């Protein structure tokens, strides 16, 4: 049983407070939702948890040991994987090589990395994409490849930054299933950032709501659904009109 936590994390960018005193924790097999309007600081928090952004103050802990100040590649080697809002596949490489490179980065030999990459594509159900060049994939497949890449070498935690953006209802549904399988079958702790609040409410065990860099609410899906504070935060932004927030919250 592992636990990843942010403890009073603050980040300031040239005066702008992107995060103030944010704390949360994820444990093995748990799916934690992280929602909030645009610019709330969700990606910044993932960056802090994965070593891409040093916090101005506060700490990141893995099973009680500090990860603060560790380099991004070290954090990944310690079992905390992530995906990116923009996909960021190795565009010129075939899908299989995208996964293979991660295996190599984590210390496997070429043959072992290819073997694990093939098993992973099979597990996700996209083995048929193995030889496609990553840059030519449609959105949905790109996301699934990114998830497969992040799952190489069995990370303890997986941080997903808006994996459902641009997906149809059916595709988002399939994604929910995949996320559940990752938590249940691989005993991986998942932190899920999503603007598709319906998906978050449906799949997460627990949800944290960020607004303007601060946690404004936490609780199980039912409580978040009923929260006045959350409703206000979303209604207050201009961006909410194109998000399925209202339907999801009502």
């Amino acid at each position, binding site marked *: 049983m592992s636990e990843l936590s942010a403890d009073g994390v603050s980040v300031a960018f040239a005066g702008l407070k992107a995060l103030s005193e944010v704390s949360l924790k994820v444990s093995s097999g748990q799916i934690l939702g992280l929602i909030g309007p645009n610019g709330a600081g969700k990606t910044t928090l993932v960056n802090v948890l994965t070593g891409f952004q040093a916090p101005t103050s506060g700490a990141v802990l893995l099973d009680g040991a500090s990860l603060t100040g560790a380099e991004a590649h070290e954090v990944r080697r310690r079992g905390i994987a992530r995906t990116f809002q923009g996909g960021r596949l190795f565009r010129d490489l075939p899908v299989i090589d995208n996964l293979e490179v991660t295996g190599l980065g984590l210390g496997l*030999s070429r*043959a072992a990395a290819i073997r694990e990459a093939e098993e992973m594509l099979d597990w996700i159900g996209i083995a048929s994409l193995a030889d496609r060049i990553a840059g030519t994939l449609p959105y949905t497949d790109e996301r699934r490849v990114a998830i497969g890449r992040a799952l190489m070498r069995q990370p303890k935690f997986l941080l997903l930054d808006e994996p459902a953006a641009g997906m149809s209802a059916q595709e988002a549904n399939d994604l929910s299933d995949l996320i559940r399988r990752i938590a249940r079958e691989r005993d991986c702790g998942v932190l899920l950032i999503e603007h598709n609040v319906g998906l978050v409410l449906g799949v997460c065990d627990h949800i944290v709501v960020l607004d303007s860099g601060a946690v404004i609410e936490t609780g199980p899906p039912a409580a978040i659904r009923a929260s006045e504070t959350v409703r206000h935060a979303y209604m207050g932004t201009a961006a909410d009109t194109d998000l399925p927030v209202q339907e999801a919250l009502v």
Partner: protein
Amino acid sequence: MRQTSSLTILRRTVSTPVILILLLVAFAILSWAVGSRPFNQTVIDILVQVTLVTGLYIFIGNSGVISFGHAAFACLGGYVIAWTTIKPMMKKNAMPGLPDWLMSMEIGWWAAAALAALWAALWAGIFGAILMRLSGIAASIATFAMLAMINAIYSNWSGVTGGTSSIVGIPIIRSVWPYLAVASLAVIIAWAYSISRHGLILRAARDEPTAARASGVDIPRARLIAFVLSGAVMGAGGAMLALSIGVVTPNTFYLGLTFTTLSMLVVGGMGSLSGAVLGVLILSSLIQVLRWLEAGVQIGTSTFALPGGVQEIGLGVVMILILMFRPTGIMGNRELKFPWRR
């Protein structure tokens, strides 16, 4: 079912070094068959350049970081040749400050070239440990600073390097075969590196550094491996250059060499080993033709000669044209391959 053994990777990519080496062999055989002294020297020059540009490619091609400093490694290698192959009698006058064991050392060309590679690799490791933490233009400028430093040291440390004066007395090798062997070895090393896990990782980091870090890739370390290996090959290239002309000065391995090797790589295609080799073959041929024209050609009864400096201008024009119309060079990211595979 996909085949995944290392043997498959080998089989899939091995045609590239085979083709490139066959090309080099063809040049060497041609010069041996023609048997003319100047032509022989031209082919030797080409093979030395192939070694140097291949060394440059190992780092620049795989990391995407432009280095303006690799001539420094050729310099380190070239002076190892001077230290270890010149007769002790002559060394005493030119480089009186050498330690006794080095003063008395007189070894064969291949052992000297291997030492040159090691010496250059050592310094690539020391400089690289610092430089590889930088990225983009800062890294490039820092490599240039490294070149300037090493040039300044070799220009001023008179007791050991003879300062800026020419060190003569290196036993010149006039046969093409040693140069062919070293150039071929450089091509094999570059190919083996690029299909190795280290090469694959570094190219991924070149194209998408953020994702590479999130994949556990230690980018400075991955770059350092390429830097040391390419430093070693450059060191061997500098050694062969010294053996081909018999003289070294710090400026043999300075801005001129930096410019020619970089232009050859850029023209051929920075991201491709085939590009590195073809860049040398194409630009060297061009330089040779321009040299002949500068020297004057007999057409009928009149002699036609281009004014001096045309060679450099011609090289510059070709480089600019290629960069305009093929910004990624002649080969881009592609490699020469036998047509039979998939």
